[in-house]
Protein backbone atom coordinates (compact mmCIF):
# COMPACT_ATOMS: atom_id res chain seq x y z
CA UNK A 1 0.00 0.00 0.00
CA UNK A 2 1.65 3.18 -1.18
CA UNK A 3 0.84 6.22 0.96
CA UNK A 4 2.93 9.36 0.84
CA UNK A 5 6.50 8.22 0.18
CA UNK A 6 6.08 4.98 2.11
CA UNK A 7 5.41 1.50 0.81
CA UNK A 8 3.53 0.01 3.74
CA UNK A 9 2.57 -3.65 3.99
CA UNK A 10 -0.75 -4.17 5.79
CA UNK A 11 -0.77 -7.16 8.17
CA UNK A 12 -4.16 -8.36 9.37
CA UNK A 13 -4.24 -10.32 12.61
CA UNK A 14 -6.93 -12.97 12.83
CA UNK A 15 -7.77 -16.16 14.68
CA UNK A 16 -8.55 -19.29 12.67
CA UNK A 17 -9.74 -21.39 15.61
CA UNK A 18 -13.50 -20.78 15.83
CA UNK A 19 -16.22 -19.85 13.35
CA UNK A 20 -17.01 -16.63 15.23
CA UNK A 21 -13.40 -15.49 14.80
CA UNK A 22 -13.33 -16.55 11.17
CA UNK A 23 -16.52 -14.54 10.58
CA UNK A 24 -14.86 -11.55 12.23
CA UNK A 25 -11.81 -11.96 9.99
CA UNK A 26 -14.00 -12.21 6.87
CA UNK A 27 -15.96 -9.10 7.86
CA UNK A 28 -12.72 -7.19 8.31
CA UNK A 29 -11.48 -8.34 4.91
CA UNK A 30 -14.67 -6.98 3.33
CA UNK A 31 -14.15 -3.69 5.15
CA UNK A 32 -10.51 -3.47 4.05
CA UNK A 33 -11.45 -4.12 0.44
CA UNK A 34 -14.10 -1.38 0.68
CA UNK A 35 -11.37 0.96 1.92
CA UNK A 36 -9.12 0.06 -1.00
CA UNK A 37 -6.72 -1.97 1.13
CA UNK A 38 -6.23 -5.07 -0.98
CA UNK A 39 -2.61 -6.09 -0.50
CA UNK A 40 -2.94 -7.14 3.15
CA UNK A 41 -1.34 -10.30 4.45
CA UNK A 42 -3.28 -12.24 7.09
CA UNK A 43 -1.40 -13.48 10.15
CA UNK A 44 -2.91 -16.15 12.38
CA UNK A 45 -2.67 -15.23 16.04
CA UNK A 46 -2.69 -17.31 19.20
CA UNK A 47 -6.02 -18.44 20.68
CA UNK A 48 -5.15 -18.80 24.36
CA UNK A 49 -7.92 -21.18 25.30
CA UNK A 50 -7.59 -23.49 22.30
CA UNK A 51 -3.82 -23.52 22.37
CA UNK A 52 -3.94 -24.01 26.12
CA UNK A 53 -1.57 -21.24 27.17
CA UNK A 54 -1.85 -18.81 30.04
CA UNK A 55 0.29 -16.39 32.05
CA UNK A 56 2.03 -16.85 35.39
CA UNK A 57 3.33 -13.37 36.18
CA UNK A 58 1.41 -10.75 38.12
CA UNK A 59 0.47 -7.39 36.67
CA UNK A 60 0.88 -5.16 39.72
CA UNK A 61 1.92 -1.84 38.23
CA UNK A 62 -1.33 -0.17 39.26
CA UNK A 63 -1.83 -2.16 42.43
CA UNK A 64 1.42 -3.38 43.98
CA UNK A 65 0.87 -6.60 45.88
CA UNK A 66 -2.56 -7.07 44.30
CA UNK A 67 -1.56 -10.33 42.61
CA UNK A 68 -3.63 -9.58 39.53
CA UNK A 69 -2.98 -11.57 36.38
CA UNK A 70 -4.17 -10.31 33.01
CA UNK A 71 -5.77 -13.62 32.07
CA UNK A 72 -5.64 -15.97 29.15
CA UNK A 73 -7.22 -13.62 26.60
CA UNK A 74 -4.76 -10.78 27.13
CA UNK A 75 -1.84 -13.19 27.40
CA UNK A 76 -2.82 -14.62 24.03
CA UNK A 77 -3.24 -11.13 22.65
CA UNK A 78 0.31 -10.29 23.74
CA UNK A 79 1.55 -13.47 22.04
CA UNK A 80 -0.43 -12.68 18.91
CA UNK A 81 1.23 -9.29 18.68
CA UNK A 82 4.57 -11.06 19.12
CA UNK A 83 3.64 -13.29 16.17
CA UNK A 84 3.04 -10.11 14.15
CA UNK A 85 6.46 -8.73 15.12
CA UNK A 86 8.12 -12.02 14.12
CA UNK A 87 6.32 -12.20 10.80
CA UNK A 88 7.04 -8.56 9.99
CA UNK A 89 10.69 -9.05 10.89
CA UNK A 90 10.89 -12.02 8.53
CA UNK A 91 9.34 -10.05 5.66
CA UNK A 92 11.10 -7.52 3.54
CA UNK A 93 9.22 -4.23 3.83
CA UNK A 94 10.34 -1.01 5.50
CA UNK A 95 6.98 -0.34 7.18
CA UNK A 96 3.93 -2.32 8.21
CA UNK A 97 0.36 -1.39 8.99
CA UNK A 98 -0.77 -3.69 11.80
CA UNK A 99 -4.53 -4.20 11.80
CA UNK A 100 -6.62 -6.16 14.26
CA UNK A 101 -9.74 -7.76 12.87
CA UNK A 102 -12.15 -5.37 14.63
CA UNK A 103 -10.58 -2.27 13.06
CA UNK A 104 -12.91 -0.01 11.12
CA UNK A 105 -11.50 2.98 9.26
CA UNK A 106 -13.39 6.26 9.59
CA UNK A 107 -14.36 8.55 6.73
CA UNK A 108 -11.47 10.42 5.17
CA UNK A 109 -8.82 8.31 6.89
CA UNK A 110 -6.65 7.88 3.82
CA UNK A 111 -6.29 11.60 3.13
CA UNK A 112 -5.56 12.32 6.80
CA UNK A 113 -3.01 9.52 6.98
CA UNK A 114 -1.39 10.76 3.77
CA UNK A 115 -1.09 14.27 5.23
CA UNK A 116 0.47 12.96 8.46
CA UNK A 117 2.89 10.69 6.60
CA UNK A 118 3.95 13.67 4.50
CA UNK A 119 4.81 15.45 7.75
CA UNK A 120 6.30 12.70 9.89
CA UNK A 121 10.12 12.48 10.13
CA UNK A 122 11.44 9.56 8.13
CA UNK A 123 13.04 7.97 11.18
CA UNK A 124 9.70 7.32 12.87
CA UNK A 125 9.25 3.89 14.41
CA UNK A 126 5.67 3.73 15.55
CA UNK A 127 2.57 5.67 14.50
CA UNK A 128 -0.71 5.12 16.32
CA UNK A 129 -3.47 5.19 13.69
CA UNK A 130 -5.92 3.94 16.27
CA UNK A 131 -5.45 4.72 19.95
CA UNK A 132 -7.16 5.51 23.21
CA UNK A 133 -6.39 7.05 26.58
CA UNK A 134 -4.32 9.89 25.12
CA UNK A 135 -5.74 12.70 27.22
CA UNK A 136 -3.48 14.35 29.77
CA UNK A 137 -0.31 12.91 28.28
CA UNK A 138 2.47 15.22 27.15
CA UNK A 139 2.72 15.42 23.38
CA UNK A 140 4.34 17.68 20.81
CA UNK A 141 2.09 19.06 18.08
CA UNK A 142 3.72 18.35 14.72
CA UNK A 143 0.69 19.69 12.80
CA UNK A 144 -2.37 18.40 10.94
CA UNK A 145 -3.34 16.08 13.80
CA UNK A 146 0.10 14.44 14.09
CA UNK A 147 1.68 14.36 17.55
CA UNK A 148 5.04 13.16 18.81
CA UNK A 149 5.37 11.50 22.22
CA UNK A 150 8.61 12.28 24.06
CA UNK A 151 10.64 9.28 25.14
CA UNK A 152 9.76 8.46 28.74
CA UNK A 153 10.02 5.52 31.08
CA UNK A 154 7.98 4.37 34.06
CA UNK A 155 4.43 3.81 35.12
CA UNK A 156 1.91 5.18 34.42
CA UNK A 157 3.08 5.05 30.83
CA UNK A 158 2.83 8.40 29.10
CA UNK A 159 2.02 7.03 25.67
CA UNK A 160 -1.26 6.36 23.89
CA UNK A 161 -2.84 2.99 24.53
CA UNK A 162 -4.53 0.57 22.14
CA UNK A 163 -2.99 -1.59 19.48
CA UNK A 164 -5.73 -2.25 16.97
CA UNK A 165 -4.14 -0.25 14.15
CA UNK A 166 -0.65 1.21 13.88
CA UNK A 167 2.26 1.64 11.51
CA UNK A 168 5.58 0.22 12.65
CA UNK A 169 8.97 0.45 10.98
CA UNK A 170 11.05 -2.63 10.28
CA UNK A 171 14.12 -0.93 11.71
CA UNK A 172 12.67 -1.06 15.23
CA UNK A 173 11.47 -4.67 15.15
CA UNK A 174 14.62 -6.28 16.52
CA UNK A 175 14.42 -3.83 19.42
CA UNK A 176 10.73 -4.54 19.96
CA UNK A 177 11.28 -8.31 19.90
CA UNK A 178 14.24 -7.94 22.27
CA UNK A 179 12.23 -5.88 24.76
CA UNK A 180 8.87 -7.66 24.65
CA UNK A 181 10.01 -10.59 26.74
CA UNK A 182 7.49 -10.77 29.57
CA UNK A 183 3.81 -11.48 28.93
CA UNK A 184 2.71 -10.05 32.28
CA UNK A 185 1.04 -6.98 30.75
CA UNK A 186 -1.31 -6.39 27.83
CA UNK A 187 0.54 -5.71 24.58
CA UNK A 188 -0.08 -1.94 24.54
CA UNK A 189 1.11 -1.35 28.12
CA UNK A 190 3.99 -3.72 27.48
CA UNK A 191 5.19 -1.69 24.51
CA UNK A 192 4.84 1.55 26.45
CA UNK A 193 6.70 0.18 29.46
CA UNK A 194 9.52 -1.70 27.77
CA UNK A 195 9.99 -0.61 24.16
CA UNK A 196 8.80 2.91 23.42
CA UNK A 197 11.42 4.72 25.51
CA UNK A 198 13.96 4.01 22.77
CA UNK A 199 11.63 4.54 19.83
CA UNK A 200 10.26 7.48 17.84
CA UNK A 201 6.57 7.30 18.66
CA UNK A 202 3.78 9.36 17.08
CA UNK A 203 -0.02 9.35 17.05
CA UNK A 204 -2.67 10.77 14.77
CA UNK A 205 -5.41 12.43 16.82
CA UNK A 206 -8.29 12.12 16.68
CA UNK A 207 -7.76 8.48 15.76
CA UNK A 208 -8.49 7.37 12.20
CA UNK A 209 -10.05 4.04 13.13
CA UNK A 210 -12.58 2.72 15.57
CA UNK A 211 -12.97 -0.76 17.01
CA UNK A 212 -16.15 -2.52 15.96
CA UNK A 213 -18.45 -2.69 18.95
CA UNK A 214 -16.19 -0.46 21.03
CA UNK A 215 -16.76 2.93 19.42
CA UNK A 216 -17.01 4.79 22.73
CA UNK A 217 -13.40 4.11 23.61
CA UNK A 218 -11.88 7.14 25.42
CA UNK A 219 -10.02 9.50 23.05
Amino acid at each position, binding site marked *: MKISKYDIKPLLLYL*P*DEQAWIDRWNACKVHLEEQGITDY*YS*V*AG*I*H*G*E*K*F*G*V*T*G*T*HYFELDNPGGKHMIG*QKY*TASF*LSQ*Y*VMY*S*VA*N*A*MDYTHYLFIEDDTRFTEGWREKLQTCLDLIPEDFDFLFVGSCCTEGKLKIDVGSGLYKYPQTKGYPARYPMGGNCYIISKKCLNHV*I*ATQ*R*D*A*YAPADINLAMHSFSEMEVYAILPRLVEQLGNEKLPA
Partner: protein
Amino acid sequence: MIIGKYNINPVCIYLTDTAYWMARTERAKKYFASEFVEDILWIKGIHAENAGLKSAKPYLIDAPDGSYFIPQKTTGVNISIMMAYAAMESHPEVEYWMMLEDDCRFVTGWQSRLKQALKDVPNDFDYLFGGSCCCADKPTEHVKGEVFEVKYPFCGHMTIMSKNGLLETMKRHLDLSSPGDIEKTISVFPFLKVYTILPRIAEQELTDGTGINNQLPI
Protein backbone atom coordinates in the same frame (compact mmCIF):
# COMPACT_ATOMS: atom_id res chain seq x y z
CA MET B 1 20.95 -23.76 0.14
CA ILE B 2 20.81 -26.04 -2.89
CA ILE B 3 20.92 -29.77 -2.20
CA GLY B 4 20.34 -31.92 -5.26
CA LYS B 5 17.29 -30.55 -7.02
CA TYR B 6 15.96 -28.88 -3.89
CA ASN B 7 16.35 -25.27 -2.82
CA ILE B 8 16.05 -25.48 0.96
CA ASN B 9 15.86 -22.52 3.31
CA PRO B 10 17.20 -23.16 6.83
CA VAL B 11 15.28 -21.75 9.80
CA CYS B 12 16.28 -21.86 13.45
CA ILE B 13 14.69 -20.69 16.68
CA TYR B 14 16.96 -19.04 19.22
CA LEU B 15 16.78 -17.37 22.61
CA THR B 16 18.85 -14.68 24.24
CA ASP B 17 16.93 -14.33 27.50
CA THR B 18 19.60 -15.79 29.78
CA ALA B 19 23.37 -16.21 29.67
CA TYR B 20 22.88 -19.92 29.07
CA TRP B 21 20.72 -19.34 26.01
CA MET B 22 22.94 -16.56 24.68
CA ALA B 23 25.94 -18.89 24.83
CA ARG B 24 23.95 -21.67 23.19
CA THR B 25 22.86 -19.34 20.40
CA GLU B 26 26.43 -18.19 19.81
CA ARG B 27 27.61 -21.80 19.63
CA ALA B 28 24.82 -22.62 17.17
CA LYS B 29 25.66 -19.69 14.90
CA LYS B 30 29.32 -20.63 14.76
CA TYR B 31 28.55 -24.29 14.34
CA PHE B 32 26.10 -23.88 11.46
CA ALA B 33 28.50 -21.52 9.71
CA SER B 34 31.24 -24.13 10.05
CA GLU B 35 28.94 -26.65 8.34
CA PHE B 36 28.16 -24.13 5.56
CA VAL B 37 24.52 -23.90 6.58
CA GLU B 38 23.96 -20.29 5.62
CA ASP B 39 21.16 -17.77 5.08
CA ILE B 40 19.33 -19.09 8.11
CA LEU B 41 16.07 -17.38 9.03
CA TRP B 42 16.62 -16.82 12.75
CA ILE B 43 13.46 -16.52 14.84
CA LYS B 44 13.71 -15.28 18.39
CA GLY B 45 11.52 -17.61 20.40
CA ILE B 46 9.76 -17.27 23.72
CA HIS B 47 11.45 -18.16 27.01
CA ALA B 48 8.37 -19.30 28.89
CA GLU B 49 9.79 -18.86 32.38
CA ASN B 50 10.96 -15.31 31.75
CA ALA B 51 7.81 -14.47 29.80
CA GLY B 52 5.61 -15.96 32.50
CA LEU B 53 3.81 -18.57 30.43
CA LYS B 54 2.57 -22.05 31.18
CA SER B 55 0.24 -24.66 29.79
CA ALA B 56 -3.36 -24.21 30.88
CA LYS B 57 -4.56 -27.57 29.62
CA PRO B 58 -3.57 -30.93 31.04
CA TYR B 59 -1.53 -33.30 28.91
CA LEU B 60 -3.87 -36.21 28.32
CA ILE B 61 -2.17 -38.44 25.76
CA ASP B 62 -0.62 -40.84 28.24
CA ALA B 63 -1.81 -39.22 31.44
CA PRO B 64 -5.59 -39.31 30.92
CA ASP B 65 -6.39 -38.51 34.55
CA GLY B 66 -5.61 -34.85 33.80
CA SER B 67 -3.08 -34.49 36.56
CA TYR B 68 -0.06 -33.67 34.44
CA PHE B 69 0.81 -30.44 32.67
CA ILE B 70 3.82 -30.17 30.38
CA PRO B 71 6.65 -28.13 31.90
CA GLN B 72 7.11 -24.43 31.14
CA LYS B 73 10.11 -25.14 28.95
CA THR B 74 8.02 -27.34 26.66
CA THR B 75 5.31 -24.69 26.47
CA GLY B 76 8.00 -22.22 25.45
CA VAL B 77 9.22 -24.55 22.72
CA ASN B 78 5.65 -25.03 21.46
CA ILE B 79 4.93 -21.31 21.29
CA SER B 80 8.30 -20.58 19.72
CA ILE B 81 7.61 -23.11 16.99
CA MET B 82 4.30 -21.36 16.30
CA MET B 83 6.23 -18.09 15.91
CA ALA B 84 8.60 -19.79 13.48
CA TYR B 85 5.75 -21.31 11.45
CA ALA B 86 4.08 -17.91 11.10
CA ALA B 87 7.32 -16.31 9.92
CA MET B 88 7.96 -19.18 7.50
CA GLU B 89 4.45 -18.92 6.08
CA SER B 90 5.17 -15.30 5.19
CA HIS B 91 7.70 -16.59 2.65
CA PRO B 92 5.48 -18.41 0.15
CA GLU B 93 8.33 -18.42 -2.33
CA VAL B 94 10.17 -21.00 -0.19
CA GLU B 95 9.24 -24.54 -1.22
CA TYR B 96 11.33 -26.40 1.38
CA TRP B 97 12.53 -25.53 4.86
CA MET B 98 15.25 -27.09 6.93
CA MET B 99 14.01 -26.73 10.49
CA LEU B 100 16.93 -26.69 12.85
CA GLU B 101 17.03 -26.64 16.60
CA ASP B 102 19.99 -24.74 17.98
CA ASP B 103 21.45 -27.92 19.48
CA CYS B 104 21.51 -29.78 16.13
CA ARG B 105 24.92 -31.25 15.40
CA PHE B 106 25.40 -33.04 12.10
CA VAL B 107 27.27 -36.31 11.75
CA THR B 108 30.27 -36.65 9.46
CA GLY B 109 29.23 -36.90 5.83
CA TRP B 110 25.73 -35.59 6.47
CA GLN B 111 25.59 -33.47 3.34
CA SER B 112 26.26 -36.31 0.89
CA ARG B 113 23.86 -38.58 2.78
CA LEU B 114 21.16 -35.92 2.73
CA LYS B 115 21.76 -35.35 -0.98
CA GLN B 116 21.29 -39.05 -1.62
CA ALA B 117 18.23 -39.23 0.65
CA LEU B 118 16.64 -36.38 -1.26
CA LYS B 119 17.08 -38.45 -4.43
CA ASP B 120 15.57 -41.50 -2.74
CA VAL B 121 12.61 -39.90 -1.00
CA PRO B 122 9.36 -39.64 -3.01
CA ASN B 123 9.01 -36.23 -4.67
CA ASP B 124 5.82 -35.41 -2.80
CA PHE B 125 7.28 -35.73 0.69
CA ASP B 126 6.08 -33.33 3.37
CA TYR B 127 8.55 -34.17 6.12
CA LEU B 128 11.97 -35.74 5.91
CA PHE B 129 13.51 -36.32 9.32
CA GLY B 130 17.27 -35.92 9.37
CA GLY B 131 17.35 -35.82 13.16
CA SER B 132 14.95 -38.14 14.95
CA CYS B 133 14.66 -40.48 17.88
CA CYS B 134 12.54 -43.34 19.20
CA CYS B 135 12.05 -44.97 15.79
CA ALA B 136 13.17 -48.44 16.85
CA ASP B 137 9.77 -49.60 18.10
CA LYS B 138 7.64 -47.88 15.46
CA PRO B 139 6.10 -49.45 12.33
CA THR B 140 8.74 -49.01 9.64
CA GLU B 141 8.91 -49.64 5.91
CA HIS B 142 12.03 -49.32 3.83
CA VAL B 143 11.65 -46.90 0.92
CA LYS B 144 15.09 -46.67 -0.70
CA GLY B 145 18.68 -46.27 0.45
CA GLU B 146 18.57 -44.73 3.90
CA VAL B 147 15.01 -43.45 3.59
CA PHE B 148 12.33 -45.15 5.66
CA GLU B 149 8.69 -44.58 6.37
CA VAL B 150 8.49 -44.65 10.16
CA LYS B 151 5.15 -44.05 11.86
CA TYR B 152 6.23 -41.78 13.50
CA PRO B 153 9.55 -40.49 14.78
CA PHE B 154 10.01 -38.18 17.75
CA CYS B 155 12.35 -35.21 18.09
CA GLY B 156 12.76 -32.47 15.56
CA HIS B 157 16.29 -31.15 15.77
CA MET B 158 16.70 -31.36 11.99
CA THR B 159 13.78 -31.81 9.62
CA ILE B 160 13.18 -30.90 6.00
CA MET B 161 9.61 -29.71 5.54
CA SER B 162 7.78 -28.92 2.33
CA LYS B 163 5.55 -25.87 1.96
CA ASN B 164 2.54 -28.17 2.00
CA GLY B 165 3.89 -29.77 5.16
CA LEU B 166 4.19 -26.36 6.78
CA LEU B 167 0.68 -25.22 5.84
CA GLU B 168 -0.94 -28.48 6.87
CA THR B 169 0.96 -28.45 10.15
CA MET B 170 -0.23 -24.92 10.89
CA LYS B 171 -3.80 -26.00 10.18
CA ARG B 172 -3.65 -29.04 12.42
CA HIS B 173 -1.18 -28.34 15.21
CA LEU B 174 -3.41 -26.14 17.34
CA ASP B 175 -3.17 -27.76 20.75
CA LEU B 176 -0.07 -26.89 22.73
CA SER B 177 -0.84 -29.01 25.78
CA SER B 178 1.48 -31.79 24.58
CA PRO B 179 5.12 -31.80 23.53
CA GLY B 180 5.13 -30.79 19.86
CA ASP B 181 6.70 -33.97 18.54
CA ILE B 182 4.15 -36.17 20.30
CA GLU B 183 1.21 -33.98 19.29
CA LYS B 184 2.23 -34.06 15.64
CA THR B 185 2.23 -37.88 15.58
CA ILE B 186 -1.48 -37.66 16.37
CA SER B 187 -2.86 -34.51 14.79
CA VAL B 188 -0.52 -33.83 11.88
CA PHE B 189 1.60 -36.71 10.57
CA PRO B 190 -1.23 -39.18 9.75
CA PHE B 191 -2.38 -36.65 7.13
CA LEU B 192 1.05 -36.10 5.56
CA LYS B 193 3.83 -37.93 3.79
CA VAL B 194 6.51 -38.40 6.42
CA TYR B 195 9.89 -40.04 5.85
CA THR B 196 12.98 -40.56 7.96
CA ILE B 197 16.67 -40.96 7.22
CA LEU B 198 18.12 -43.81 9.26
CA PRO B 199 20.59 -43.81 10.82
CA ARG B 200 19.93 -40.16 11.58
CA ILE B 201 22.27 -37.58 10.10
CA ALA B 202 21.96 -35.14 12.99
CA GLU B 203 22.55 -35.58 16.68
CA GLN B 204 21.92 -33.17 19.55
CA GLU B 205 24.45 -31.28 21.59
CA LEU B 206 24.61 -32.02 25.31
CA THR B 207 22.74 -29.34 27.24
CA ASP B 208 25.97 -28.08 28.81
CA GLY B 209 27.55 -27.73 25.38
CA THR B 210 30.42 -30.09 26.14
CA GLY B 211 29.74 -32.65 23.44
CA ILE B 212 27.16 -34.79 21.70
CA ASN B 213 24.30 -36.51 23.50
CA ASN B 214 25.05 -40.16 22.85
CA GLN B 215 22.07 -41.31 24.86
CA LEU B 216 19.37 -40.26 22.38
CA PRO B 217 17.41 -43.44 21.55
CA ILE B 218 17.57 -44.57 17.91
